[in-house]
């Protein structure tokens, strides 16, 4: 899944995530399903504003909405987030490997400096 998604799809996900209100909405639906009303309340948003944000999140595949006409509960879809997490994680691991090498080497430098006394 992570590999199949293209960089373009990642960009759509990132664009959807690039808004604090949408991230707050996601954080809320990550705790459990919520109606549009329930999403609007804590942020003191008007319903059309919430609907606009939900549209962006739905297009990015981050949120799905139920069919019940009146409630239409919103639910988090984790797959695109997992792609972002995989993407970030691979990069982070690469840095961790490099920084691990630097840190190991620094221990050698440190013990040499202790042996010879610090030169300034």
């Amino acid at each position, binding site marked *: 899944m992570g590999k199949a998604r293209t960089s373009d799809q990642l960009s759509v996900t990132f664009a959807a995530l690039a808004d604090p209100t949408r991230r707050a909405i996601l954080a809320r639906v990550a705790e459990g399903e919520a109606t549009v009303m329930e999403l609007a309340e804590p942020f003191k948003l008007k319903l059309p504003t919430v609907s606009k944000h939900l549209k962006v999140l739905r297009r990015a595949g981050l949120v799905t909405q139920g069919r019940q006409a009146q409630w239409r509960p919103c639910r988090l879809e984790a797959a695109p987030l997992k792609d972002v997490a995989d993407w970030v994680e691979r990069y982070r691991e*690469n840095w961790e490997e490099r920084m691990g090498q630097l840190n190991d080497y620094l221990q050698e430098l440190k013990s040499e400096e202790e042996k010879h006394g610090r030169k300034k």
Partner: protein
Amino acid sequence: MVVKSKPVVTLSMPSDRELVITVVLDAPRHLVFEATTNPEHVKHWWGPRRTSVTICEIDLRPGGAWRYVIRDNETGREDGFSGVYREITPPERMVYTEGWEGLPGHDYLVTATLEEKDGKTTLTSHLQYKSIEDRDGHVNSGMEGGMRETYDRLGELLAAIA
């Protein structure tokens, strides 16, 4: 015998074209600066573990160039990386461009700051890309391996981007 360490690296994305990488290294700042700016030291640690540094040139002054070539110990493949220093403030700050020679024109600007506390140094690398595509491309290139289940990291990720 030095025990192989794995310092914790944290990563954040303040905007579409930026990445900020932070790591705490177990050494005082002057040593971290020395290890990252002196070619005699850089060649001992730069690049992934499976590679060796074959060329390491550093002209440490504003406008001065740097160039590293790493060779994959198994495949023999060589990759060059290079850039130009913009600012050098020993031992606390460096600003330089960096790019993979296999993809010219997609270099990015690195601002590295070093802060020391209790004998440890926090190295913060701020990477500024020319475009979101460059940033995504950088992360996707040569970073294979290490794929693992990350569902349990979702909470962490949401916290990081929130």
